[in-house]
């Protein structure tokens, strides 16, 4: 055994390592990024949950409740209150995901408070996201408890200017869950479907694309009259078809495993197809734009983990976006995963119909047009 030969192999590997930014990134930057993204993506304090308040009592007592909500908005900022005049409008927005809960103060609320006749406040929650609803429910229960005790929890020692309701009998918080209990596996399913499309995009749009390029196969196509837009669109649509196939398979198998109700509902299947199709186009376009100038086959492999962490976890697939710090929320806004996961949750957990997904679909389509345009612009037709 010769030390020189061993050192020669070490030297060879170290030289290659330091000349490959892709390898260095995957080994050093990726774990750090995972630490930061995962560290902030899980268990963060949930803030800015949109709650609709429908006050049909318009009394001093009901305004007191509204003021207490305002105090929560100004203080811990857990809730973002939006006033609605109609309960039905609020419930529609709850179903489509524009608000996460509805607080309904009925017309007879103040009269019942005056009469001591079991005054009631209804709390209607979108229980498809247990992290969010439990946070809102805790706030609501605390608020009702304070009302019943006649205390202001946010300004201890100070009395509110408005009169506090009578304590007997106590105000009753009626909790209405909009959907049957959602197990966590159902909650996770949307993320897994989006992940299956991402993997196809990564393999087809990233790894295979760069491998073919480095093997010289592209040169064989570039000498033909094919235009770069035709080549890019051909590659994107083939990738999207593969993504749609993978997404559909995981939707069906995952849906059966997770026990999604009425999985074969044809209208929902149609909407799922639209979401899976637009998600596939968006993700493969995203991958092409990232890879359009890459020629080192190591790069897509090294980026796989980084992109997975950077796109999957900030999407709200496993923890609500409302729990992220602002910088992570910004990633989620430009992450196609976020819109895919939101739309898939709307369809699979709430069966909202098109009104629950059209924003996501249009964002994904807009995203795709932009990315395809940029990919075509950056693609080099010549060597």
């Amino acid at each position, binding site marked *: 055994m010769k030390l020189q030969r061993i050192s020669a192999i070490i030297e060879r590997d170290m030289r290659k390592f330091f000349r490959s930014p892709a390898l260095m990134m995957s080994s050093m930057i990726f774990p750090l990024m995972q630490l930061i993204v995962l560290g902030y993506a899980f268990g963060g304090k949930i803030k800015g949950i949109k709650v609709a308040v429908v006050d049909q009592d318009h009394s001093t007592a009901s305004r007191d409740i509204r003021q207490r909500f305002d105090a929560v908005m100004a203080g811990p900022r857990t809730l973002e209150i939006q006033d609605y005049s109609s309960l039905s409008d609020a419930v529609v927005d709850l179903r489509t995901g524009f608000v996460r809960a509805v607080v309904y103060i009925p017309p007879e609320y103040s009269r019942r408070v005056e009469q001591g006749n079991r005054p009631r406040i209804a709390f209607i929650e979108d229980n498809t996201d247990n992290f969010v609803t439990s946070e809102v429910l805790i706030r609501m229960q605390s608020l009702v408890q304070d009302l019943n005790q006649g205390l202001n929890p946010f300004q201890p020692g100070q009395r509110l200017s408005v009169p506090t309701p009578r304590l007997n009998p106590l105000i009753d918080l009626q909790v209405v869950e909009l959907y049957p209990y959602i197990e966590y596996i159902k909650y996770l399913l949307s993320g897994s479907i989006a992940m299956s499309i991402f993997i196809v995009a990564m393999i087809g749009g990233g790894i295979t694309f760069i491998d073919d390029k480095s093997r*010289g196969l592209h040169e*064989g196509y570039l*000498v033909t009259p094919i235009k770069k837009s035709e080549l890019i669109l051909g590659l994107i649509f083939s990738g999207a078809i593969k993504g749609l196939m993978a997404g559909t398979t995981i939707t069906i198998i995952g849906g059966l495993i997770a026990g999604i109700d009425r999985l074969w509902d044809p209208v929902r299947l149609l909407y799922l197809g639209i979401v899976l199709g637009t998600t596939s186009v968006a993700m493969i376009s995203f991958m092409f734009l990232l890879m359009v100038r890459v020629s080192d086959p190591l790069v897509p492999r090294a980026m796989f983990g980084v992109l997975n962490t950077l796109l999957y976890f900030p999407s709200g697939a496993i923890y609500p976006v409302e729990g992220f710090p602002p910088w992570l929320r910004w990633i989620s806004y430009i992450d196609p995963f976020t819109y895919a996961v939101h739309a898939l949750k709307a369809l699979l957990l709430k069966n909202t119909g098109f009104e629950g997904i059209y924003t996501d679909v249009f964002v994904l389509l807009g995203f795709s047009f932009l990315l395809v345009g940029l990919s075509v612009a950056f693609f080099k037709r*010549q060597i």
Partner: protein
Amino acid sequence: MNHTETNAIEVLKLVKRFGDFVAVKDVSFAVHTGEIFGLLGPNGAGKTTLIRMMTTLTPPTSGTAVVAGHDVITDPDGVRHAIGVIPQALTSDPELTARENVLIHAKLYGLSSAQRQKLIPQLLESVGLTEFADKLVGSFSGGMRRRLEIARGLVHSPKILFLDEPTTGLDPVSRTAVWEMINKLKESASLTILLTTHYMDEADRLCDRIAIVDHGQLVALDTPIKLKDSVPGTDIVEAEFGNPPADWNATLEKLAGVASVTSSDGVTHIASNNGPLTVRELMDLARDRGVAVRHVSVQGTTLDDVFLYYTGRQLRDAATETVKYDTNHLYK
């Protein structure tokens, strides 16, 4: 130079720079319709860059080329429709079958279904791949892949076929098969073929005319016979000496029939009009002067001698030199 009907390709003052490195330096030539034209030179001489500029794959820094009547800069699409290209790398898709590879290209060139059904079996037959038509290309030898790529390059009946080092990396049997194919193509159609090679025998055997390229410049262009004739002497005496004195080459030049004497890599090349006589006198002189003769041989002039005559180096030396020179810019 104006494009004429007799010229399939006209290369006009082509220059290609990669940063500070000039890969092609002001090259001009014309390829006649129907001929097999060879670009001969060592690796890194600029042959592939030249072919890439002619096939629209690489934009020239200056100058242009008119290919089948279309300018590569102003009408690249016209060029692409008129040419078939077999790049140096094996570009057939190993995950597809031979038939599928040709089919995809036929579609890229807009061939109708009827044309495809008629042409694809014919092309596969012509390259001897009928029985492998439905086999995955990944299982093919290098020679089979090259033959398939030639078939693929002909699917749209191009006017000009570009072959970039068609036999590099192939075993001798596959090389011969590819040569036979190229010769068959020449006989069968009014196809113009431009090929690059660094094999002298390949250029000699296949090409009607040869352009010798070295360090990005065109150093000679003519038919193989005329190129050989341009080298002084009819024979080349190649000799290795043990302890030649300083004036040895000058002394050799005075021998009967000698036209010129050059030395390269320890080997002396003597161009002679009478090889056997020169050898006899050489042996007598060496004995008289006490110079050891390690090796001596006589042969007719080859393209190797032509390359040596025009560049001052042998092709095998040029290859190592030029590769080093060529890749320097990549590490800057």
